[in-house]
């Protein structure tokens, strides 16, 4: 499976996640408020939760100091539906608390209205 049209851009609104298939693999497509699209395997690397039920949201950052929160990332973080671990979509799906770990990701490009996933 080299590449595949998985949906139309209009199939999901900004801030939404949609489940799809890339070949036999169950994946999620995420659309940010800025209309960036990302694709990941629909399975959390921690204990396997279905990421289709995640929340796209912002996150408090490492620039925070005790008692003083710094918040950003807007909607660029995937929070897992089970334990709530945070994965940064813009940074290859790396876990905020442990960037050595990352979600299984796929490349995405948009052509006309098509969302195309490829390896």
């Amino acid at each position, binding site marked *: 499976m080299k590449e595949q049209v998985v949906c139309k851009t209009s199939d999901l609104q900004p801030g939404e996640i949609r489940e799809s298939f890339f070949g036999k693999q169950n994946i999620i497509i995420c659309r940010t408020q800025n209309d960036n699209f990302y694709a990941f395997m629909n399975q959390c690397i*921690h*204990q*396997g*939760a279905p990421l289709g*039920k*995640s929340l796209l*949201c912002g996150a408090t950052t490492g620039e925070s100091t005790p008692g003083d929160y710094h918040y950003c990332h807007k909607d660029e973080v995937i929070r897992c*539906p*089970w334990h*709530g671990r945070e994965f940064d979509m813009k940074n290859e799906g790396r876990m905020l608390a442990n960037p050595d770990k990352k979600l299984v990701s796929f490349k995405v490009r948009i052509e006309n209205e098509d969302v195309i996933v490829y390896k």
Partner: protein
Amino acid sequence: MAKKQIPLIDTDIHERVQYKDILEYLDEPFKHYMKNCHWIQEKHMPYTQPATAGVDRADAILPDGRPAGSDLAFMQEQLLDDVGHEFGILTGALDPSPSSMHGWYEMAAALATAYNDWQIEHWLEKDERLYGSVHIASQDRDEAVKEIERVGSHPKMVQILLPIDDIMWGDPYYHPIFEAAEKHDLMIGMHHNEPPVYYGKWPRYFIEWHTLIPTAHMKIIVNMIFNGVFDKFPKLGLMMIEGGFTHIPHLMWKMDQQFRDLRHEVPWLKRKPSEIMKEQVRITTQPAEELTKKEFMSLIDQMGTDEMLCFSTDYPHWDYDSPYRALPNMEPELKEKIFSENARAFYPKLPDKRED
């Protein structure tokens, strides 16, 4: 590829009642207080919710919006049938529930009765895999004993979920409850229900509180052991639910060492504290600290027995442990113990293994 089924005895599953559903089980005037006066249980926790759907797994909320854990058919599909549970032990405990009520003894006792009746009718008698916990309001001990006498002989009630209060469980105040427990072959379960662990107050952050839940367990174990509860009630067993398990070897070593020095103060102890724990205390695994296989095996070794840990999922809560992923791989014999046989040996009312 189909997932391999695990014939699990799951020692912590949360069914959830809604206020409107418990009404018909409440006696007056308590029904009136809930229905017409809009009584709701006080809430304490000063933090944001831990995960994306409050305290629940986001995918466990029902498609029609009802709260996670409130529908048996959905629980069967998402958990019991999916994993292949042999049995599950219900632990309820979110509001409305007597487990976290302080004050208003009458309401708490009425709520316990209503809760138990609802649990029996909607869960225990609807799915043969499900076993239950007797809820009591122990702030009125004598009413609590009456409630145990009322429902404790139900064949599917396997433990008493004892609410956490500022009277420690080793206090003789609880002896009549333990007596009633022994009489009905019920074990005692401790499941945290928002007990502040910081000197009677909440810590600044949820993560501190959640990290320190085992300290609440440790205090109760130490108190019950040194106050002689387990010798006075030899059939009694204590299930420590939802505190993880890596603190156990520490506690055994610490109590044994202290006992060697200070035996004179508690001369009624007939066994070493660690022996008492091995015989009468069990620990559910969730939320499992993430150990490598080597670390996990070494921990079991430090406990001196592989018969204390009992797997639990805590479904449908946010910190659910997957039976497939939460613990490292282990030998089939050990897995069988942790995933089913330890719990079966602990709860006298759980059926023997089916030979089929």
